[in-house]
Structure formats: C-alpha cells, structure tokens
C-alpha cells in the first residue's frame, strides 16, 4: 500500500512522540529517586539558606550585574562613537580595545583588575572596594561587546536620517543625540538585554576576588553552604535563583524582538 505524503508525515510524528515517551519512562524508572532527592532537594538545607540567599547573595549578584552593565554601557557607547569617528587615532584606539578585550577571558581581566593593578600601584586603590573592582573588572570586557552592538545599531539607522537632520541645520552632535542614537538604541535593546544575561552569569567569577559574607554572590554562597553541610542542594537553589533573573529577561528579549519584527 502506498502512503500519501501527509499520512507518512503523521506516522513519523506519532513515532516521534512514542520514542520520546519511552525514553522519559526509562530515565524515570532507572533513577534512584530517594537518593536524588536526598542529595539535591533537601528541604531543610534549602530553607536554611534563606533569607540570606536573597537578601545578600541574590542582591549582590543583581548589584554586580547592574554596576558592570552601566559601566560597560557607558564605555561601550564612547567606544562605538570613537569607532565611527572621522578621527583616525580614535578609530585605532577603539578597534584595538575591542579586539583586545573580546579576545581575553573575563576571568583574566578580573584577576588583572583585582590583583594585578593593586600590586602594581599599592598606594592607590579602585574606589568602592570589591564593588568597584567588579564593576571595572567585568565592565571592561562587557564594554567591548556592547561597543560592537551599539556600533551596529548606529549603522543600522538609515543614512538619510542623519542627512535630513543636518539639512534642518542641526550640528553633527545634535543630530546624533536627537535623531540617530534614540533610533539606534531601539534597535540594540534586544542584544543589550542578552548582554545583561551574560553579565549575570559572569558575576559568578567574582568569588576569585575574595568576597566576604556581605559581598558574597550566588555561586560562592552556594559553594560555601555546600562545603559546610556536605550536600549539593544549595547548587540547585542557586541555579533556580539565577533563573529568576535570566528567564524573565530572555522572555523580554523575545517579546521585544517580536515587536520589532511587527514594526518593520
């Protein structure tokens, strides 16, 4: 009997569901549930982590993220404008910076800011203690990525926009501020939100700077609790708390991209 293409597709789809269901059943059946929940889902360990998990660890994670983001965004905007400048040395500097910091591991930069620079200049220090070091240490790297994103956004604004503004008598600077940048930022909001998500995860590197009980962030907090209680449940709690930040953000990005798609 010959099957119509439509029937064949339907059979293939049903087969897909069946295979997937069997695989799930096999995993569920084979797993040692008592052992798993004892290790990863101990209610007493989890509840013991609160409220510090939120009032200190989650709070610091968010704080580090925001500070590094604002620093990176500001520096990134300056770099993007330098990259597009007609002044050749500006373009060189911006290009060199971006290539350098995109090529280096974030951890290495963090070490450099946290230990390298203080060793070289023992009589000075970055203001703000750990908060300052984190802002700069993570922000320097983020700036390189954001500069490229913002530059692409500026270039995505049609050339006619700048020309129309100049034709009305606006200076180049005024036209950039009032006409080009507002439209560029609309374009780059989704990729910049992605950058916040990446930064959120990168704050887990901060522990290398030697954080205290008040400056601790989620990953280090979970690791410490794991060490004291010899139970991995804290890792699950920390993971869930990261998702509390990142899932709404990626949802937001998707919504924004859908809206941008409709407007075009």
């Amino acid at each position, binding site marked *: 009997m010959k099957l119509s293409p439509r029937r064949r597709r339907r059979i293939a789809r049903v087969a897909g569901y069946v295979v997937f269901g069997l695989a799930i059943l096999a995993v569920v059946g084979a797993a040692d549930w008592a052992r798993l929940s004892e290790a990863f889902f101990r209610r007493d360990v989890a509840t013991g982590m609160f409220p510090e998990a939120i009032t200190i660890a989650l709070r610091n994670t968010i704080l580090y993220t925001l500070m590094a983001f604002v620093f990176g965004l500001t520096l990134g905007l300056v770099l993007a404008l330098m990259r597009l400048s007609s002044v050749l040395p500006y373009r060189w500097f911006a290009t060199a910076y971006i290539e350098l910091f995109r090529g280096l591991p974030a951890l290495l930069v963090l070490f450099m800011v946290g230990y390298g620079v203080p060793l070289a200049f023992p009589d000075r220090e970055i203001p703000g203690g750990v908060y300052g070091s984190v802002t700069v240490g993570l922000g320097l790297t983020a700036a390189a990525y954001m500069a490229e994103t913002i530059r692409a956004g500026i270039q995505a604004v*049609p050339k*006619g*926009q700048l*020309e*129309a*503004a*100049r*034709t*009305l*008598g*606006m*200076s180049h600077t*005024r036209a950039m501020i*009032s*006409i080009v940048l*507002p*439209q560029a930022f*609309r374009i780059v909001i989704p990729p910049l939100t992605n950058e916040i998500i990446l930064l959120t995860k990168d704050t887990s590197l901060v522990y290398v700077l030697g954080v205290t009980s008040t400056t601790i962030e989620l990953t280090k907090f979970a690791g410490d609790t794991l060490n004291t209680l010899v139970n991995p449940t804290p890792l699950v709690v920390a993971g869930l708390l990261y998702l509390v930040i990142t899932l709404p953000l990626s949802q937001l990005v998707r919504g924004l991209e859908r809206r941008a798609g409709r*407007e075009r």
Partner: protein
Amino acid sequence: MSTIEISDLHKSFGSLEVLRGIDLTVEPGEVVCVIGPSGSGKSTLLRCVNLLEEPTSGSIRVAGVEVTDPDCDIDEVRRGIGMVFQQFNLFGHLTVRENVTIAQRRVLKRGKAEADRIAAANLGRVGLSEKAKAYPAQLSGGQQQRVAIARALAMDPQLMLFDEPTSALDPELVGEVLAVMRGLAAEGMTMLVVTHEMAFAREVASRVVFMDGGVIVEQGPPAEVFGNPREDRTREFLHRVLEPASVSETEIIKIKGETL
C-alpha cells in the same frame, strides 16, 4: 541678489567625475526643474547646494553667502534651505508633530508653544492637521512626503530643494504631493526641483534645465525645452521619457552604444 549662483562646479567621486563644470543661477521666486537621465548628476548637483556633498571645485553662493568658503557656517546656511528627499527621511521615532517641531526647538530655539503653533500651521498647509499625533510608519507614502515638506517649511526657508519627491510613491499618491508643491510655487517659493514628472515641470517650472553626463546640455522656459528642444540629446531623452512605448529597436541599440 540671486538665490543660487553656481559657477564652474565640479564634483568627483574618486576617479569618477560626476559634475563637469556646472553654471546655474536661480532667481528669487523661480521654480527651476532639473531633468535628465539616471546617473547624469542631478542629485549630486542638488546635494552640493546645501553641502551634503563637498564640491571638488567651483563656487556656490546661496543668497549671497559663499557656501564653498571654508569659513562659512554651513549649519546656519542650511537653516534657510529646505530639502525634500525621495525616501522622505522622516524621523521614525518621533510623531508627526515632533518631526516638524524638533529642529524649530533645537536649531531655531523656538519655545514649545510657538513651535507647536507653526507646526500646526504647516501641517494644515499640506492637509495633514489631523495626523499630528501619528508616527511616520502609520502614514502612506504620500502623507509622509507631505509631512517632510511641512517639516522643511517650518524652518521658514528662503529656498526649497526637491530630489525626485514623488519617485518612491505609488502612482495614485503622486498627485497629492505635486499639488502641495504647485501651491508652494504659486505662493512664490524659490524651488529647485529634480523630477521625472514632465507634466509637472511643463506646467509649474519657470525654467527647465536638462542635464546629461555631468553638464547642463540645455535650459530654457518649459515651452521651449519641451516643445522645441535645440539639442539632439534633449530631444532623444524627451522622446524616451514621454513616449516610452514608441522607442524603436534601432534607438535601443544606439542607447546601448552610447553607454558602452
């Protein structure tokens, strides 16, 4: 004093010489239409007048001010020259009213109330008073182009440049834009218009300029240029544009030969 005085204007892009010695004068109140084949340098000529393109050599005076002088404050000169583009170039993040007020506020430093009043008057002039709160994306092409005209007019220009203002429009929307331009001409606005709308040029222009290959081939009153062109190139161009259905095969071969 002439509104525009161009003498021996040359413009090259790299090794490509696009304008090869243009002399053109536009008097106050004149409507000068520039016609000519694609690539002949019409847009470049227009864009040199407000220095969107930097001339390679020659001089351009607008209302007596030498714009090609390095000491000239070009932002100041541009305030007095309205420009309307083929692609409208409305500011997409601003409403219609904001499009018309932003340069008034930022450049002319008019107060909000005054800028709004002038915007309303100019939107009324182009028949779009009820669209003040809309965003450009919500308007038809013809409406967008009329807003662009209002935006330029709000700066009280003494000269308006139009670069093929109707070429990006659906045919049924061309008329509304031409009607606004006809109105402007009747009010005595000085206009330099690059256009493919021959009927408009014939009716509204005080003078028609035919360009080809970076030079002005011929110019004169529309009745003369259209009715009795002196140059062969003009005649050929007009034949191709006005009766595209009757261009013969031998002419196509000739046209190809020209461009080779």
